[in-house]
């Protein structure tokens, strides 16, 4: 057992998999000698050398294309796209190439690769470096989509992603890199598609992802302490595969659903889940399912402004309380 930052967990997770399997290779901008702009890959270059940890030019299409070609022919590449906003400059690979190749070839081709990317707000970087774009990946058939909230999950889910025979988009949260958590020694491998009930509760189900998980937990604490409302908090951990069993099971017990989404509202993961629960769990619901999201606007840069737009503990508490009291 050791305390580890989320940032160091990334490096440890990659190292664990590279040490295990020589087919795992890693490429991206400034990931090698410099250890990554978020310092999340420090030491890998030294440990695995320049042939397995390769700095690239600023050519995101080439990065993902190369990862895909290598994956198709036998390697298990991990590609870093520095900020998740930059998925837009290589989106053809995310939307059209990587996810569709297996299907179009009727199973002849495969794409076992991981795209790691730093997602989310909190660093005051403004509208083009702070987005939460999990839905950009979730909406594409053929991808798997993962977003850990703790150092332990970073390692376990990254390992699961690398070992997965399908392409996985792995969203790391910029504002979690500095957070710490207990991590056991030795190999850690988790399972994709399993949500975690972090806090049981009978009155409401709160679904959260990544940075929103600690906020949902804090909100649940306050709801309990101040209002006697016991919220069940679920960390989704992966959006595809989606653990609808755990979600629907929880709603069948609590009868109320809340999503806490960092993304701007329209077509976020919460919309999809609400539509599933509203359909399949309709008669379990005692009141309207409520989405707590960043408003549907580009993100402002200024710290005071950025702090106003993301869902806060206060907003979560408020919405849940008002909704349950209504």
């Amino acid at each position, binding site marked *: 057992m050791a305390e580890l930052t989320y940032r160091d967990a990334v490096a440890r997770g990659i190292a664990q998999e590279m040490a295990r399997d020589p087919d795992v*290779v890693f490429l991206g901008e400034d990931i090698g000698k410099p250890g990554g702009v978020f310092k999340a890959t420090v030491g890998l270059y030294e440990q695995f050398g320049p042939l397995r940890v390769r700095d690239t030019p600023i050519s995101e*299409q080439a990065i993902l294309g*190369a990862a895909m*070609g290598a994956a*198709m022919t036998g390697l298990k590449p991990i590609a870093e796209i520095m900020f998740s906003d930059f998925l837009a400059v290589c989106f053809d690979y995310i939307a059209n190439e990587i996810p569709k190749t297996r*299907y179009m070839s*009727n199973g*002849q081709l495969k794409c076992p690769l991981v795209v790691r990317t730093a997602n989310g707000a909190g660093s005051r970087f403004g509208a083009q470096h702070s987005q939460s774009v999990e839905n950009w990946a979730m909406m594409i058939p053929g991808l798997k989509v993962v977003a850990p909230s703790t150092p332990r999950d970073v390692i376990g889910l990254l390992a699961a992603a690398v070992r997965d025979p399908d392409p996985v988009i792995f969203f790391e949260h910029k504002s979690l890199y500095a957070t710490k958590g207990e991590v056991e020694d030795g190999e850690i491998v988790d399972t994709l*598609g399993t949500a975690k009930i972090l806090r049981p509760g009978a009155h409401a189900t709160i679904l959260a992802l990544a940075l929103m998980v600690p906020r949902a937990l804090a909100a649940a604490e306050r709801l309990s302490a101040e209002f006697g409302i016991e919220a069940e908090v679920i960390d989704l951990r992966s959006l595809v595969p989606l653990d609808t069993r755990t979600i629907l099971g929880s709603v069948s017990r609590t009868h109320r659903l809340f999503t806490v989404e960092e993304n701007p509202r329209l077509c976020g993961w919460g919309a999809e889940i609400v539509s599933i629960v509203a359909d399949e769990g309709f008669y379990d619901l005692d009141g309207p399912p409520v989405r707590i999201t960043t408003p549907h606007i580009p993100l402002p840069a200024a710290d005071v402004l950025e702090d106003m737009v993301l869902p806060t503990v206060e907003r979560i508490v408020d919405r849940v309380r008002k909704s349950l009291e209504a």
Partner: protein
Amino acid sequence: MAKKPRAAGKLPNDDIGQATRLALYRSQQVLRVAEQRAFDLFLQNLVKGTSHLSLGQEAIAAGFALAMQPGDLSFCTYRGHAHTLARGVPVEKVLGELMQRDNGLMRGKGGSMHLTSAEHGVMGSYAIIGAHLPIACGAAWRAQYRGDKDVSVCFFGDGTTNIGAFHEALNFAAIWKLPVVFVCENNLYMEYTPIGDVTAVEHPAADRASAYGLPRIIIDGNDADAVFRTAGAAFARARAGEGPSLIECMTYRHSGHSRADPAKYRPEGELERWKERDPIKIYRERLTQFGIADATIARIDAEVLAEVDAATEACKAAPMPTEEILFTDVYADGGWAWRN
């Protein structure tokens, strides 16, 4: 035109052995007859969706494929029937896919633009312009990393040289010295617009080679011998660890861009002039010049026709794909489940 120095006293094209010569002819003839058949089947409404023929460009597909070794990998575009067939994929498999039958290469799931036959080294046909150039780099990276000796060969058109992925892939391949060969088939047109109207240089690929530290190579893409020779040199360079090549092959497509296109945008006489330089016509003359009997040629032609006829009948008789395969192979577990 970059040409290999010729050994003194030899005839032009004497470096091509007789067996190779016959194979190049047969291959071009298969492509020609199979694609003409595809067009006939389209007129009979038996080829569905779109399709993009390489009529007139056969020498490139045949020349490169014949120079490849079995482990080498082809990355094609939507205009990929010829390259797929040239690697030895049975005509029936290709026509079946064009006819969207269950006997097609991908059982109708991919369609004419995405022909794939992994067992023949055809690692997919890509329908979004430029996308496969970086992908070919990735396959070449794997070969380099593992010490495998195969080469990735990536075919694309003149119009593809103006999209960003072209630039990223060429630079990437050059700096990593990847064993990849980029083949630009310059058929003078994008869909309906002449490449010259929208490109800052005369030779859209070759005139940019220097931007990636690569030599400028332009060849006659209608001469299968020239293609075969150039391919061999580029493959040798790749296998020797000397890095990528970019080869611009001058050619012309005899038909429209796709089945929907009557190609009315072409200036009068242009097609006719290029038909004078039809690669199959050129190559028949070459065979004769090298002493191959008309009867031999006729026999090959007959064999090819029989093969295509048989494939056509098999496809016509083949069933349509059925619902079960709709939901297979989205994910590696064989299915499509995105939830539990």
